């Protein structure tokens, strides 16, 4: 092993310190006995206990989870379909326009997307609640899914689908039995991406949520405006733990699947 030069060691330490010190402080203070966030008064887990008894937070967490699951699933279905048509649909009128347009929401400022959706929901008289947040999240995360899935479809060997048709599959069967299992890792990463995006989102949710449904980020944000409480630190620590575990499992799963698939594919296509 090469030893790090002192310069590299310092850069590495600084970089990681910059990234993680805020989070570490947050985690440490979530175990603080004192109600004052900035004064350390000994170790305690009492804020976690408080948190479990806080109905408002629990409700918000439940809404967030529901929204994330529904919107990411919906976005995955729609995004995969869009990617499939854009990559496979051959040349149809306006194809270039469509494939350009599907990426537009990626660069659109969130405030604008949020405002546009708000106007739409008001326009069609849809009451703001869980449904509207799900729709809004689906709208903006579906283009991320379609980007991930179409990059996989581009390298997909078309003759596999032809072979399936040749052996008697209808186009739908060939998609279900051949295409989908092979692109599954990309679809799963797309879902995870959509899920985390929905979990994170504050801006769009604050435009589209109503009094009946508040998501956790909105809740935290509004709570913090009244002053940071150790309860929020505890909540954030839990969220950090969940996200960290999610990211680690997701990357392990997709990495393993991708590696395996790459081998299979290289082997299946004659050099």
């Amino acid at each position: 092993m090469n030893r790090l030069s002192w310069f590299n060691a310092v850069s590495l330490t600084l970089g990681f310190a910059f990234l993680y010190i805020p989070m570490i402080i947050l985690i440490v203070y979530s175990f603080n006995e004192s109600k004052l966030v900035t004064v350390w008064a000994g170790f305690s887990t009492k804020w976690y206990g408080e948190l479990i008894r806080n109905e408002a937070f629990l409700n918000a967490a439940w809404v967030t989870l529901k929204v994330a699951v529904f919107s990411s699933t919906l976005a995955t279905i729609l995004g995969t379909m869009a990617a499939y048509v854009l990559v496979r649909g051959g040349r149809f009128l306006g194809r270039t326009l469509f494939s350009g347009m599907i990426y537009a929401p990626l660069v659109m400022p969130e405030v604008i997307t949020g405002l546009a959706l708000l106007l739409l929901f008001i326009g069609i008289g849809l009451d703001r609640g869980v449904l509207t947040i799900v729709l809004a999240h689906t709208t903006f995360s579906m283009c991320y899914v379609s980007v991930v899935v179409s990059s996989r479809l581009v390298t997909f060997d078309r003759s596999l689908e032809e072979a399936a048709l040749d052996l008697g599959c209808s186009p739908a069967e060939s998609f279900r039995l051949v295409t989908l299992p092979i692109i599954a890792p990309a679809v799963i990463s797309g879902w995870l991406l959509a899920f985390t995006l929905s979990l994170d989102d504050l801006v769009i949710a604050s435009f589209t949520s109503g009094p009946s449904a508040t998501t956790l980020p909105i809740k935290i944000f509004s709570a913090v405006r009244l002053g940071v409480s150790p309860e929020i630190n505890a909540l954030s620590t839990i969220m950090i733990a969940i996200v960290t575990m999610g990211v680690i499992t997701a990357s392990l799963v997709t990495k393993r699947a991708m590696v395996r698939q790459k081998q299979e594919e290289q082997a299946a296509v004659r050099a």
Partner: protein
Amino acid sequence: MNTSVFAPWDDPGEKPLIQFRNVTKRFGEFTAIDNLSLDIFEKEFFALLGPSGCGKTTMMRMLAGFETPTEGQIMLAGQDIDPIPPNKRAVNMMFQSYALFPHLSVWENIAFGLRRDSMPKHDLEERVEAMLRLTRLEQFARRKPHQISGGQRQRVALARSLAKAPKLLLLDEPLGALDKKLRQDTQFELMDIQEKTGTTFVIVTHDQEEAMTVASRVAVMDQGQLMQVATPDRIYETPNSVYVADFIGDVNIIRGRARQNGGDGYHIDWAEGQEALTAASDNGFDTGQSCHLAIRPEKVAITAERPSDAANAVQGKVHDIAYLGNLSTYYVELPNGIIIKAQTANTRRISRRSYTWEDPVWLSWTATAGVLLAN
């Protein structure tokens, strides 16, 4: 032996199974298949031969339904197949790239088509096992395609396309990755299957020996056109053009000018100061017309002395010798620089070879040994 020769193409009453009617296929500006007409009959073993990029795979893909002709029609059993989607055609294709399903085991790959027909479980298992036995893949049944060798993968692809026992089977270079022994065995298996099931085969191959072995008829293609369609022996013995003669097997081409010599006999003036060659041909040539005499090396005899009765005899010296084991090919240089190949069977040990480099020798052949071609 059956008494009647299988030759439906000679029978005007016979209906072809496949008919290409003036089919043209363009990819953008590029013409891959150029106004091609062709009949293929039931129970034929039809081989497509031609250089890379001449349109063999494109023909297959049109039959399987993955490409539609730009112009013209393809008829299967008298019906235009254009509106029939690939999954409804009684046609199976073995892909040049194999296209094995990477997420399924060898066993499941072979069973894939049978499952679509909702075949009873027991019959399906039996059928898959039979295919595995046929292609000698029994011990690899549980493996995934990436866990087996190239030749084994090719056999899986073959087994998968054979499994459904379709009316028409399209094989795009089915045996290219196999060693010679296994290739020969599989060739005979294919012929056997064909005899038993009466399936019509269309096979693409780069191996002309393979085409000669298995095919009832051979089509030689070039740049999207058919150069000649005939039985293997006729393609070999009476090619209709220099292109075909050159493409199939080894050949000497001598350019010259024809001079009529009564009946179907011709003299060919081919070099200054050399005696004219004589050849017989059914194709008419005008005196003075330029022509090509194509002679197979094995029809050229090599001797030390001038044979007294040969119709054609030329002298030269041995320029090179290619030793092929059972055969030797002598490259003999004539005084005017032309090199002519003569092939003889090695009935003696190589150390006792009669001629060696730089030896003066005579080459001779009969008037009917060669084929006289216009172009």
